[in-house]
C-alpha cells in the first residue's frame, strides 16, 4: 500500500499536465451530469475515460472544449482557457452525432479539420486539399477520397473522422468512442496511428467502453460516474474495487 502510494506520487511529480480541470460541474437542466471533478490529464499518455452509460464521459471531454455549458469550475488547456489554445486540441465526436447522408465526400470532411486554421473568409485551396489527402492516406482511405460519405462502411466513416482530427495537427486528441462498433481493420489502423502520435509526445484522451481492452491499449485511466471515482496509471488504478465503485452492483456482470 505504501509502495503504491509513493509510486503514484512519483508519477504525479514527473508528469506534466496540460489539461487541468478544477471543481468542474456540469448540469443539464436540473440533472447533474458531472459533479465536482478535479482532474489532471498527463501529457504524452494514452488515456481512457471509462464509466457506465450516462456517467458523463462524453460530457467530460465536451466540457474541456466548452461545448457544454459549465455550471461551476474551471478548465485550463496549456495554462490558458480553451478558447485561447484551441488549435492545440483535436476532436473526434461520436460517429452517430452527424448525418452521414450529408452530400459530401470523404476528402471534404477531412478538409473540415483545417477550417479552424483557415479562419473566416478563407476558402479551402489546393494546399488544404493536399494536406487532407495526406491524412486520409494515413488512415488507409486514400482510394476513397471522392466517395460519398454515406457509402462508406461504419469503420471507414470512423477513420474519416480520425483523419479529420489528424488534419488538425494538435497536441491533444479528444476522442469520443472512436472504437465503438468498428471492424478489426479500423481498430488496428486507429490504434497504430494513436501509438505513433503518443510516440511524438501527443496526448490521447479517449472515451472507451470496452473494459476488456483497457489495460491492453491504454497506460492511464480516468474512471468516472458523475463523480470522479479514480484516476492514474492503469496498473495502480484499474482495479476490481475501483471498477465496482464505478459501475456499482448492477453493472458488474458486464465487467466479468
Amino acid at each position, binding site marked *: 500500500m505504501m509502495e503504491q502510494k509513493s509510486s503514484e506520487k512519483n508519477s504525479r511529480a514527473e508528469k506534466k499536465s496540460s489539461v487541468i480541470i478544477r471543481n468542474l460541474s456540469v448540469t443539464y437542466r436540473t440533472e447533474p451530469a458531472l459533479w465536482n471533478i478535479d482532474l489532471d490529464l498527463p501529457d504524452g499518455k494514452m488515456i481512457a475515460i471509462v464509466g457506465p452509460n450516462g456517467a458523463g464521459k462524453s460530457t467530460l471531454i465536451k466540457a474541456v472544449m466548452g461545448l457544454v455549458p459549465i455550471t461551476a469550475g474551471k478548465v485550463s488547456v496549456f495554462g490558458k482557457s480553451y478558447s485561447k489554445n484551441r488549435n492545440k486540441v483535436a476532436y473526434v465526436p461520436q460517429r452517430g452525432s452527424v448525418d452521414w447522408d*450529408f452530400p*459530401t465526400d470523404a476528402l471534404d470532411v477531412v478538409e*473540415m479539420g483545417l*477550417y*479552424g486554421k483557415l479562419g473566416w473568409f478563407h476558402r479551402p485551396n489546393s494546399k488544404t486539399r493536399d494536406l487532407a489527402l495526406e491524412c486520409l492516406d494515413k488512415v488507409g482511405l486514400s482510394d476513397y477520397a471522392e466517395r460519398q460519405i454515406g457509402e462508406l462502411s461504419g469503420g471507414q466513416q470512423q477513420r474519416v473522422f480520425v483523419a*479529420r482530427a489528424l488534419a488538425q495537427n494538435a497536441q491533444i486528441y479528444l476522442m469520443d468512442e472512436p472504437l465503438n462498433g468498428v471492424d478489426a481493420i479500423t481498430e488496428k489502423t486507429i490504434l497504430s496511428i494513436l501509438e505513433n502520435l503518443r510516440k511524438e509526445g501527443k496526448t490521447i484522451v479517449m472515451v472507451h467502453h470496452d473494459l476488456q481492452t483497457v489495460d491492453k491499449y491504454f497506460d492511464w485511466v480516468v474512471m468516472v460516474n458523475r463523480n470522479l471515482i479514480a484516476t492514474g496509471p492503469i496498473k495502480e488504478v484499474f482495479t476490481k474495487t475501483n471498477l465496482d465503485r464505478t459501475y456499482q452492483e448492477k453493472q458488474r456482470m458486464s465487467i466479468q
Partner: protein
Amino acid sequence: MVLEEIFSAFLGIFTDYTLRYVALGSAILGITSGALGCFTVLRKQSLFGDALAHAALPGIGFAYLFAGTKDSLLLMLGAAIFAWFGGIITLAITSTTRIKQDAALGITLSVFFGLGIVLLTYLQNIGGASQGGLDRFLFGQAAALIESDVINLGILASFCFAVLIVFYKEFKITTFDSSFGKSLGFPIKYINALLTSVIVVAVVIGLHTVGVVLMVSMLIAPAAAARQWTSNLKNMIILSAIFGGLSGIIGSMISSTTEGMSTGPVIVITITAILGISLLFSPKQGYLFRYLRNQRKSPSPLDEIKTTDKERSNHGNF
C-alpha cells in the same frame, strides 16, 4: 389548346411587359429559396421554414396598419421582423420549457397565422376596397408585381447570395457537424442566426409569388429534387437554385394563361412535378433505376460475400 396557350405565354416573356416582370420575380424567388432551402432540408428544419413563413403574415398586417401604405418594401420589412420574431419564439419555447420542437413549431405557426388572418380581416372591414390585395400574400399573386418590386426582390436576393458565398464554409461545417465546428471556434449561434436571417429574407421574397402558406414547399422541394441528382453540396445548391428558378418561370407562365389564377399554387405544383421526376428518374437514387438494377441482378447470398471481400470497392450505389 392548352399547349397553344402555354406557348403564347412563353412568347409573352419576351413581348409582354407585365409577364416579363412576373416571371422574373418568380424566378428570383425560386433561385433564392432553392439555394437556401438546401440548408433548411439538410438541417432537418423544414418545418422551421414553414413556421417562419406563417409568422410573417401578421407582419404584413401590422406594417399596413401603421404605415398605411402598400409600399412593398415596408410590407416586407414588417414580414421579416415577424418571421424573425416567430423563429426566436420557437427557439425560446424549446429551450426554456419541456415542449419539444415539433410542438413549439406548431404553436408558433398556428398562433402567428391566426393573428395574421384576424388582422387582415379586420383591415378588410375597416379599409373596404382600399385594403384589397393584402390577402394576395396568402397564396401569392405574382401578377401584381411591377418593375420596382422586382428590383427590390433582386437586391434582396443578391444580398442572400453574397452572404451564402462569403459564409459557405461556415454554413457547411455548422450544418454537417456543429459541435466540431464549435470546437474549432466558429460561433455556432451567430452563424445559425445569420443563416436563419437569409432564409427569412428568402421567405419575404416568396410572399409576393407563392405566399406564406405555400412558401415552405419552395424551400423543400427544389432541395429534395436536387439531392436526388448529386452528392456534392455545391452542386446541390446550384441545381436546387436552377430547379426553383425554372419552376418560378414555368409556373408564372401557366398561371398567366388564366385570369385571376394565383401564381403560388401553380409554381408549387410545377416544382413538385420536378421533384416527382427526380424521385423517379435520377440515375443513382431514382426508383426506376433502382428497380431496374434489382431486376437485372437479384443478389444471392454468395454475391454478398464476394462484395464484402472486395471491401465494396466496386459498389458505390446503394
